């Protein structure tokens, strides 16, 4: 057939690879130039907010026990496929509310919904934590109520 030579010709006459993106585009995609080493090596992109970390922070704010928050996390990851992507926040609030009910420590709907709102969750402490730390378990070291004393990292550092 004549398609193969045409394909070969098209590949042979294909334009060259585009030049690497300028620094502005690299910054927009998350690959920020390093300021510590003079801009030679790119810094890895900022981490995406983990839904489990969001639930843990919200659970701590609701004064849930760790097991109750763990139930909420389990519900969230079990139901995530059944909800739309833009309903993540709603699903997180629902899971926290359901977990509280199932553990016989119910909270108000408004409390569960309020504590997963971005304007509420992204408080000063939350921004401090997730704006700087790659691994979200550091959330326990930053004064988040009952979780502080149970951080494995903090426990091991004290040995």
């Amino acid at each position, binding site marked *: 057939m004549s398609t193969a030579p045409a394909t070969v010709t098209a590949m042979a006459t294909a334009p060259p690879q585009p030049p690497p993106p300028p620094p502005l585009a690299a910054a927009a995609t998350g690959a920020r130039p390093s300021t510590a080493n003079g801009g030679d090596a790119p810094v890895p992109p900022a981490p995406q907010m983990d839904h*489990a970390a969001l639930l843990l922070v919200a659970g701590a704010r609701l004064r849930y026990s*760790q097991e109750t928050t763990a139930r909420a996390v389990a519900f969230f990851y079990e139901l995530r496929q059944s909800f739309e992507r833009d309903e993540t926040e709603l*699903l997180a609030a629902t899971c926290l509310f359901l977990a509280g009910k199932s553990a016989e420590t119910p909270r108000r709907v408004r409390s569960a919904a309020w504590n997963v709102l971005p304007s509420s969750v992204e408080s000063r402490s939350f921004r401090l934590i997730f704006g700087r730390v790659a691994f979200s378990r550091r959330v326990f070291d930053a004064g988040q109520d009952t979780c502080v004393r149970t951080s494995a*990292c903090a*426990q091991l550092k004290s040995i």
Partner: protein
Amino acid sequence: MHRARRSDAATLPLDDAYFRRKAAVVDAEQKALRLLGFDLETPTCHRLALTFAHAARCSTRAARIAAALANDALLDETCRGLPAAAVAAAAVDVALAADDQPAPSRCAARFGVADRDVGAARTALVAGLERALAEPPAR
């Protein structure tokens, strides 16, 4: 009242969006309950970790580390996909190793958990701990 009781919190915006959101949470709860088949019994590794620690005669410090590791496992995608008993057994393993105590007694085998799952959970927990310990302390 909310503002008076919690002076550090922002005032709740009690507009139409607030009530719509509240109703949406209740509707989503109904949907979630049907998807879960009205079965809210979800195994978590916290209680199992403490049970394993008790069975392995762990010290109080090791039991605390195991409970903390069980909590940290919620943040790890690998551990979230493994059985709760495997994560709990791995947490006790790592806690005993960190506390310089003898090897555990393979309690997870009684729950039908494969050693491969326990090993995967242990690897994930140790990797996460190493990352966390390597980070500078939070201010």
